[in-house]
């Protein structure tokens, strides 16, 4: 293989070189972008759960309470018993469990959405700690509450005030901007979980729909091994209820409805098509280029180049060309990915994860988690794209080189 000859061929035959590079680079760019988009949608779908430090949420749907007075459970989240929670904690793949109790409190003068949270657990609504805008977060062992800032503004509640819900008084320790923290597991008022459990256990409305003891909960947030999430979802249904609402990244992905979010298999199929397109483009372009050089190959053989010499030269040209195509494809993909990273994606939150009663103003509105599409090209994907391009170049160059090297010099040189 002569490097100088190779470089001259690529440099002086610009049309040939650019056609081959451009054709293949489009295929490679397509492959990289398809996979980057698929990964981006997957990451986006994890966002609502990641916000609360979990990979899975568990709720159990139940009956609608007879009267909307006092303390009630939303019909989308009724009792998950303590023994069920303990079984869940022992499931393989479960790395941690966060618990919460979601209540609707209908007092004569006001309705409250109340969430009982574990102050010290990093899994679940305790992430609100970072969203305190005024005052402080809940301290262990204290009977106090946090109020959502917009709710506090609406009703003139300030830090240091005392609010009374279901005949229980809670000093307001702080205000939180829940919209900064999460879209699921949000409420008007946050209290220690033990207090919420006491309120629920004491409520005849709750007990009539779903028997509840002070150690039970109605929302679970699970941190799990990524590769076990699918298996865990079915195990959780077996433990809690066949009709349980299990929120996973996959369930959010399905709600997105984007082509790129549909499935791994579709992405694989689309990638395969992109690879086939890239191979066909490379093969067709290079076959045309090499056919144009039949006379040149004849000359090389006439002056003493062996078949091996010819194949080596063409193979090296092809590999270098495809390597450049891979790099150019990567550059194209990076430009497209940069453009797409300014795109917003709206992830719908299922109605049963929305804490607001549907009969209250705004309660029936679809809630979205909106975020910038996190498109980026991982190193491994970038390397794979370039490597694939080189492999295509090698295979194409070797195949075409072997074919063209078989020509007899006399056949291409005889007609003067």
């Amino acid at each position, binding site marked *: 293989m002569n490097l100088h000859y190779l470089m001259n061929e690529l440099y002086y035959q610009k049309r040939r070189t650019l056609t081959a590079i451009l054709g293949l680079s489009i295929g490679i760019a397509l492959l990289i972008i398809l996979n980057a988009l698929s990964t981006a949608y997957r990451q986006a779908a994890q966002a609502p759960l990641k916000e609360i430090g979990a990979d899975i949420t568990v709720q159990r749907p139940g009956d609608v309470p007879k009267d909307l007075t006092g303390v009630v459970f939303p019909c989308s989240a009724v009792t998950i018993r303590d023994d069920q929670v303990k079984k869940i904690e022992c499931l393989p793949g479960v790395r941690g469990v966060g618990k919460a109790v979601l209540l609707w409190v209908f007092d004569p003068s006001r309705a409250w959405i109340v969430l009982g949270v574990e102050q010290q657990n990093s899994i679940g609504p305790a992430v609100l700690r970072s969203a305190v805008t005024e005052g402080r977060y809940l301290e262990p062992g204290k009977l106090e509450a946090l109020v959502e800032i917009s709710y506090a503004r609406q009703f003139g509640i300030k830090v240091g005030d005392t609010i009374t819900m279901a005949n229980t008084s809670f000093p307001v320790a702080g205000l939180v901007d829940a919209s900064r923290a999460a879209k699921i597991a949000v409420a008007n008022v946050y209290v220690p979980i033990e207090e919420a459990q006491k309120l629920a256990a004491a409520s005849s409305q709750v007990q009539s729909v779903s028997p509840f003891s002070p150690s039970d909960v109605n929302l679970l947030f699970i941190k799990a091994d990524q590769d076990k999430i699918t298996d865990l979802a079915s195990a959780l249904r077996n433990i809690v209820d066949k009709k349980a609402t299990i929120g996973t990244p996959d369930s959010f992905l399905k709600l997105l409805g984007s082509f790129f979010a549909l499935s791994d298999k579709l992405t694989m199929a689309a990638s395969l098509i992109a690879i086939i397109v890239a191979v066909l483009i490379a093969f067709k372009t290079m076959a045309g280029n090499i056919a144009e050089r039949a006379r040149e190959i004849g000359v090389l053989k*006439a*002056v003493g*180049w*062996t*078949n091996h010499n010819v194949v080596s030269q063409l193979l090296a040209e092809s590999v270098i060309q495809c390597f450049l195509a891979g790099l150019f494809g990567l550059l194209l993909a990076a430009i497209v990915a940069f453009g797409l990273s300014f795109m917003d994606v709206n992830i719908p939150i299922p109605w049963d994860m929305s804490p607001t009663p549907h009969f209250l103003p705004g309660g029936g509105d679809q809630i979205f988690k909106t975020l910038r599409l996190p498109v980026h090209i991982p190193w491994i994907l970038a390397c794979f794209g370039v490597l694939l391009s080189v492999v295509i170049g090698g295979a194409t160059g070797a195949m075409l080189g072997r074919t063209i090297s078989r020509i007899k*010099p006399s056949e291409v*040189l005889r007609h*003067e």
Partner: protein
Amino acid sequence: MNNVVNNGALLSGKGLSKTYGDLTVVKDVSVSVKAGEFVCLVGKSGCGKTTLLSLLSGLERPTRGQVMLAGKDITSATEDELALFRRQNVGFIFQSFNLIPTLAAWENVALSLFPIAMKETEREQRALDLLEKMEMGHRTEHLPSALSGGEKQRVAIARALINRPKLLFADEPTGNLDSATGDAIMEILNRLHREEGVGILMVTHEVELAKTADRLIRMHDGEVIS
């Protein structure tokens, strides 16, 4: 059998025939060329001269017959053996020059040295020396597209000489040149033959050009007639 064979020949073809489908282009021809001899193969267009040249140089295999070049039977050699044999023993000059368009003049000259492991400077020096000898020392870095027809053929002759061949095969070397340039090219070939003892087998349809040759072989309808 048409016999133009000399004993002690550098090149000899015996009973050579070449058939394409139903068409026999070369019919039972025997020829030979001695070392340092300048032989012209003349005849009208389409009489089989170029095919015979291809058979004798190992560019093509005969349907029948045997070619011995520098003591080796090249008719039974493999493709790669033939290529190596051509690289080491013969040079080619074509009517339409057949220079590689993307290589500079000196690189075209050094073309058959590319697969050989040697220093780039040595390769270049050998090519430059030959171009100098062809009075092309001022055009060494030019691409073929920047050269005139005569200059291209000088580069092609230099390329044919790079491996110090025993025999040059020239197929209508002046066919694409005007008469003055053609004369200059013939002068170069004559000089190589006279002064350096290079053997030449040249195909031409112009008998005038063949006058300076040591020997003439005439062909007609695929047969040697004298």
